[in-house]
């Protein structure tokens, strides 16, 4: 049985979930519009930097170094954070993280807490867990508030409500905030959210956050955001609990120089985030009196142990790969059935869970490379996708069912036919004959059996030509090998060899 708390939402595979979403034209147009806007802003503010590629190189180097020495930097962080008055907790998995956070909240006898947007808490399923223990978590990020009030799920980990447009947001606010007269201007919506949230900021004493970065050398925690609601949560409550994946640590404070440039430009197309909060431990009379960091592993360690896919953990969650991805453009985030959508989700989710559970995700990509091109820490996502596909195939081939599967048989046959020129030539001749039952009188193939029916559902295909290239070449070269390259010969060949007008 699947655990109750999971960042992977259902058993539907990607093609099935995508099919449903492709029929939702409203969501598709919202996603397309929003990603186009962010993508254009991102291109402008990354294009203006002469050292953008060097910043990517630096980001990659720092993240790769941090991961290579993660044990060292995590301990260094723990010591520095503790010295500064913070308390560090280690959570092996989602269940442990939830228990630790619940315990900390219960110590203060409260039934409501503030939340700053944290995808890590979505990963461990914190809100529903707290709910079952009588604690209501209030999301304060505008987009997360929309998701929470709309009983929806995030579809994008930087802009969680990207799939909703303004009118849909208004309907949710009207209904859930009891504001039937609410206007539709952005100011009206922001103002409604502000009144709704302010009351909570002033009243609630415990806040839960995530973090963008941990700094090993001084135990600092860093969050960047656009709205300032996070800043409210970081400064007003008495108790602050930050849930952070172990991969988020950076060695030095000065490393932020790179990421505070690349993250906002990649994520929201801003030169810098409006709010950059960096705090170290606790200080009397300033901010929270009690500060906890919960370091979450939750299957990150095994990823770290896989040299081929370790780069997955370099991710700084900018979501530029989602905005650039032509697959994400079509389906939006919900097709990935996970808090981590898009190309990074397609490699992260199956590794955070099991390859069996997320096995359709590594195939949810045309390997077009747009994700790798925009990634500010140069994660070669196509390479990791192929690596994971390889592992899935390897597992399949261990079972008889997998061995006899249509893909395995097809690929084995193709590999056998591609082993020599003579076999390929034979296959071509056989194909030219065997195709006849599929070819219509115009020489087109309009219908093919499963699984090739996937092609012909929307696409025709030209039938195999009467002569393959190698057949043509052997006839052409037949008279005399020696004459190849002779100008007369070339002229003759051109007459026969040019475009044939099809």
């Amino acid at each position, binding site marked *: 049985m699947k655990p109750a708390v999971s960042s992977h939402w259902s058993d539907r595979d990607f093609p099935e979930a*995508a099919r449903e979403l492709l029929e939702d034209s409203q969501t598709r147009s919202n996603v397309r519009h929003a990603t186009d806007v962010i993508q254009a802003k991102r291109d402008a503010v990354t294009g203006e930097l002469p050292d953008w590629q060097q910043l990517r190189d630096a980001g990659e180097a720092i993240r790769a170094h941090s991961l290579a020495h993660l044990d060292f930097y995590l301990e260094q962080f723990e010591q520095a954070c503790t010295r500064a008055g913070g308390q560090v907790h280690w959570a092996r998995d989602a269940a442990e993280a939830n228990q630790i956070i619940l315990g900390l909240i219960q110590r203060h006898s409260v039934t409501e807490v503030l939340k700053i947007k944290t995808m890590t808490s979505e990963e461990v399923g914190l809100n529903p867990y707290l709910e079952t223990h009588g604690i209501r978590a209030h999301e304060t990020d505008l987009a997360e508030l929309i998701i929470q009030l709309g009983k929806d799920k995030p579809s994008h980990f930087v802009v969680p409500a990207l799939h909703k447009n303004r009118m849909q947001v208004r309907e949710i606010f009207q209904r859930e905030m009891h504001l039937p007269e609410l206007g539709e201007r952005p100011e009206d919506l922001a103002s409604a959210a502000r009144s709704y949230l302010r009351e909570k900021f002033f009243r609630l004493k415990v806040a839960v956050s995530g973090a963008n970065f941990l700094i090993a050398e001084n135990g600092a925690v860093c969050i960047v955001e656009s709205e300032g609601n996070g800043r409210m949560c970081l400064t007003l409550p008495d108790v602050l609990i930050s849930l952070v994946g172990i991969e988020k640590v950076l060695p030095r404070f000065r490393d932020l120089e790179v990421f505070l440039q690349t993250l906002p430009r990649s994520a929201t197309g801003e030169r810098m985030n409006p709010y950059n909060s960096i705090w170290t431990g606790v200080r009397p009379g300033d901010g929270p009196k009690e500060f906890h960091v919960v370091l979450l592993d939750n299957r990150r360690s095994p990823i770290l142990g896989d040299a081929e896919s370790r780069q997955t953990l370099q991710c700084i969650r900018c979501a530029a790969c989602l905005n650039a991805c*032509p*697959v994400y453009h079509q389906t939006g985030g919900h097709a990935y059935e996970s808090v981590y959508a898009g190309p990074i989700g397609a490699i992260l989710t199956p590794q955070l869970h099991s390859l069996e559970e997320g096995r359709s995700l590594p195939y949810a990509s045309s390997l077009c490379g747009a994700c790798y091109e925009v990634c500010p820490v140069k994660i070669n996502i196509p390479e990791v996708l*192929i690596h994971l596909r390889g592992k899935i195939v390897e597992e399949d081939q261990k079972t008889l069912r997998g061995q006899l599967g249509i893909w395995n048989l097809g690929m084995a046959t193709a590999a056998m036919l*591609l082993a020599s020129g003579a076999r390929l030539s034979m296959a071509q001749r056989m194909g030219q004959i065997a195709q006849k039952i599929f070819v219509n009188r115009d020489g087109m193939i309009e219908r093919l059996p499963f699984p090739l029916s996937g092609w012909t559902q929307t*696409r025709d295909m030209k039938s195999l*030509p009467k002569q393959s290239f190698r057949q043509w070449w052997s006839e052409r070269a037949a008279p005399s090998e020696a004459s190849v*390259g002779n100008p007369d010969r070339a002229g003759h060949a051109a007459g026969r060899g040019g*475009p*044939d007008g099809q």
Partner: protein
Amino acid sequence: MLVSLFITCYNDTLFPETGRSVVRVLERLGHEVEFRPEQTCCGQMHWNTGYLHEAIPILRHFVEVYRDAETIVVPSSSCVSMMRDHYLKAADSVMDASLRADVEALLPRIYEFTEFLVKRLGIEDVGATFPHKVTLHPSCHSQRSLHLGDIPTRLLKQVRGLQLLNLENSQECCGFGGTFSIKNADVSSAMLADKVRCILNTGAEVCTAVDNSCLMHLFGSLHRQRTLVRTAHIAEILASSAGERA
């Protein structure tokens, strides 16, 4: 120069006219073309679908066939990207140092067709005439793996009579992605629909590319929709001369 043509398995089987055009252009430019009949495939389909073990003998075969070739020209950016991006990794995955050494020696001698013309030969005008409205789909591998940039455009701009029309969202994938087009047929078709819409908006008679894989995909929809837009590999345009129909 003696040019060894690696036609690729799908051009060989499905698009022989592309191979004939490559031969024609290269011979017209005074080069000698050879075709090694032992050649088959680069192994990309197996590799990209996760059949990594099955891909190894195929790429090994490729390396064997071309070991002593001086210059190898491939009319497919996708297959060249397989070689440049994955062959070394593949050799390492089977811990075969001699295969790695062979690949390292071979890679600098492999060129995508348009890259060979412009970068290796320094030629942009191949003497072609093609009096048609054309739009170029810059395939993903040609742009993001081979970084061909404006090389195909520069060649097309020198073709007599050719009117090159700008394609909107040109950098976006057409949705082919090899087995992706079958495993995720619905998403692939939606991506294709967007691309086809952009192509139709250009008003072009012909859509071209350096990859027949994308063109096969685009043709599939253009033909299903009964449009009059044709697809042609860039080699076919560059091989055309005055007085001929495309």
